[in-house]
């Protein structure tokens, strides 16, 4: 791109940004949007935190499909993972190994805490899963082969239950007379915790696998 074209492009974007900004500034900050509806139904959702209620109950279908998207991204990455040469990591760093040995147990506890606390304050499966995946990435930085040695197949099996348990809970709620993912009222809290627990594990394993790749299925490496 030549200089003139770049400036023209920047100018065009500036005009668009200005237009969008003026539209956004006109959006009234008053009114409660969907908040009042969420708050009205919150006591029936099984949890006390509005965001968790939206994610796992009111819009559970979106969250279910999002877990499917995660798996699809992973399958896509697997399909591409052969014949890529990855540079060996420098794992012989004392500070890193010492820090990781200290941090990983803490991160596991933090993930479990985030999962539990999601019922009544910010937290939940995605936050816990991200923390758990971070612990896995730290371990991989110290010892790239830890997963294939330590957990072998279990790690790969754990990719599935997030979607599977969500699906089964959804189908079970249909059998009990509701719509898909319309939990029975008195069981909603425990069902959400069940779904979130498995979702957290699957999210963590999926994110870590996206980072680390899997020689087993990749064919290369």
């Amino acid at each position, binding site marked *: *791109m030549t200089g003139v074209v*770049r400036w023209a*492009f*920047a100018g065009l*974007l*500036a005009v*668009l*940004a200005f237009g*969008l*900004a003026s539209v*956004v*500034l006109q*959006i009234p*900050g*008053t*009114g*409660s*949007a*969907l*908040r009042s509806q*969420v708050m009205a139904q919150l006591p029936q959702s099984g949890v006390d935190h*509005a*965001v968790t*209620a*939206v*994610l796992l109950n009111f*819009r559970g279908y*979106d*969250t279910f499909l*999002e877990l499917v*998207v*995660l798996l699809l*991204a*992973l399958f*896509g*990455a697997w399909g*591409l*993972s052969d*014949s*890529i*040469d990855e540079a060996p990591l420098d794992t012989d760093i004392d500070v890193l190994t010492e820090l990781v040995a200290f941090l990983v147990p803490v991160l596991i506890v933090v993930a479990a805490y985030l999962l539990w606390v999601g019922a009544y304050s910010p937290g*939940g499966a*995605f*936050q816990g*899963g*991200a923390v758990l995946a971070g612990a896995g990435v730290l371990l991989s930085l110290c010892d790239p082969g830890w997963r294939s040695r330590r957990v072998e197949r279990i790690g790969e099996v754990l990719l599935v239950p997030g979607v599977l348990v969500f699906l089964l809970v959804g189908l079970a709620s249909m059998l009990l007379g509701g719509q898909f993912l319309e939990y029975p009222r008195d069981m909603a809290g425990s069902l959400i915790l069940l779904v979130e627990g498995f979702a957290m594990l699957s*999210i963590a394993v*999926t*994110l870590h696998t*996206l*980072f680390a790749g899997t020689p087993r299925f990749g064919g290369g490496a």
Partner: protein
Amino acid sequence: MTPAQLYALVGIGLFFVGLYALGVRQHLLPRILALNIMGSGVFVVLVALARRSDGVDPVPHAMVITGIVVAVSATALALRLMLRVAHATGSATLTDTGDE
């Protein structure tokens, strides 16, 4: 101007900074980063506009939480694709056929 509106404007700014980089840069790595910055801008706008006069609307917050995880996995897939392009063509850029 309320703080929420200021955050929304910052989000729009991030989006267009990313869009500019996406149009200008040739290498795929800055382009993937640019897409991420655009996505972060959208998240900031959503979170900022969730603030209402009587409290915070939880629906956009839930959308952003799912969006972040999808963005991370999409980025990982994009990076894999970039490595594949680099492996196949010798450079991590997309050029028109007959351009070289």
